[in-house]
């Protein structure tokens, strides 16, 4: 109890209490390092943050992208945002920045850059990818109470997220989305359906697709469209 309070309030070496031990010394040493790391993370934040608003804004993100040498439209930037659990598109707050960079163990721009390939591997793990995929949709909801995303943005997002892994599905799906007239926007349920479809349905023969199952109607239409194309 006391320890935790001293650690919060004072410098670690003030914890010279009766039960001071080697473990405590080690802890204080490591926490010193942690503090140093945090300081550097904050410094890095400040180098990109907008002075008046105190957050990293789109301009700051642009600078960050050029420093880590990726396009700001690159999927890895989205992954970085996911790691930070960034809420607002185009902005990183200090809390989000700390959360992300601490998790990446990166306190210099060079380390951030080096962490990106590892981050991508982490995101591509199936258990994480589902979360990342749904995060990407939410991240694109910029207006309050917005629940859907327009077809054009959805196509970009599909290509960004699934394009490398499910190239043919995504190509056809985008082609379909752009030619159909029934839907002008896509909601979260349909969005999640797309991923499930790519993961589960054999393509392009679609043999295991059953419209009697709970697939969103937009996918029923897509499959029908595919089958018409094939004959």
């Amino acid at each position, binding site marked *: 109890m006391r320890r935790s309070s001293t650690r919060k309030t004072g410098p670690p070496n003030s914890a010279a209490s009766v039960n001071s031990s080697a473990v405590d010394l080690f802890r204080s040493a490591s926490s010193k390092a942690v503090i140093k790391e945090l300081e550097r993370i904050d410094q890095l934040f400040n180098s990109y943050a907008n002075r008046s608003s105190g957050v990293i804004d789109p301009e700051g993100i642009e600078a960050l992208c050029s420093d880590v040498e990726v396009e700001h439209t690159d999927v890895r930037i989205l992954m970085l945002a996911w790691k930070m659990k960034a809420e607002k598109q185009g902005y990183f707050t200090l809390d989000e920045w700390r959360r992300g960079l601490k998790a990446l163990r990166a306190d210099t721009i060079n380390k951030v850059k080096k962490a990106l390939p590892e981050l991508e591997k982490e995101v591509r793990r199936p258990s994480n990818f589902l979360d990342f995929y749904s995060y990407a949709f939410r991240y694109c909801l910029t207006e309050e109470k917005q629940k859907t995303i327009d077809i054009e943005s959805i196509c970009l997002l599909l290509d960004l997220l699934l394009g490398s892994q499910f190239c043919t599905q995504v190509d056809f799906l985008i082609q379909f989305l752009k030619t159909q007239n029934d839907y002008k926007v896509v909601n979260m*349920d349909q969005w999640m359906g797309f991923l499930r479809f790519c993961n589960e349905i054999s393509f392009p023969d679609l043999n295991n697709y059953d*419209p009697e199952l709970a697939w969103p109607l937009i996918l029923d239409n897509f499959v029908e469209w595919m089958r018409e194309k094939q004959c």
Partner: protein
Amino acid sequence: MLILLQDIELSKEINESFKQSSQARTKLPSGIEMSVHVLTTGYWPTYPPMDVRLPHELNVYQDIFKEFYLSKYSGRRLMWQNSLGHCVLKAEFPKGKKELAVSLFQTVVLMLFNDAWKLSFQDIKDSTVIEDKELRRTLQSLACGKVRVLQKLPKGREVQDDDSFMFNEEFNAPLYRIKVNAIQMKETVEENTSTTERVFRDRQYQVDAAIVRIMKTRKVLSHTLLITELFQQLKFPIKPADLKKRIESLIDREYLERDKNNPQIYNYLA
């Protein structure tokens, strides 16, 4: 439903007090009786407003009623639904007196023959300003139907632009009181699609209600079972795709959610 019954009750009272009112006793043209149903807009089916130039006597009647009504309930707006009016006319044919139960449009046309013996289609159209199709149907009902109180020249089923109409002096019928049926409007294509749409919309609500009812009791249900139950409950034919559409709409509106671990299962969100 309650509002509908209320409207009818209130209308009775209004008609009663109208008859007692000073306006009615002093200004009304004699020889005409009128009863009005005042119906609340929005609760009753809507009808497209139809123009008609009423004979002077009827116009006076409407105006006095309106004046009376608005003095009683200021700030309201009265709109006359001419297409819904009906009248009983006393007619003297050479072969006997009759009472004709007719629509307001039929009345307006027939009353022109109080002052004329023969009128062209265009004359009638100009004096009544009834919409063209509606007028043709009205004339058809008076001159080409079962009860022919008018004669059409030349004879024929359809009303042409240069047709003329005459008072039928030969008219005779065994009964004293005769109903002249209006000719049923053939549904136009637009009307047909709008009806289908309306039916579909009404059914949507029924589908939504059924889905919510089922999910409310089951809380958690697989897609297949939900669809099966819906087919059992709904009394009209419906495509599975339409059911899906409604389910998805309810997900959108957060009545349901797709289970996070099993996409074939829906959860009811209370």
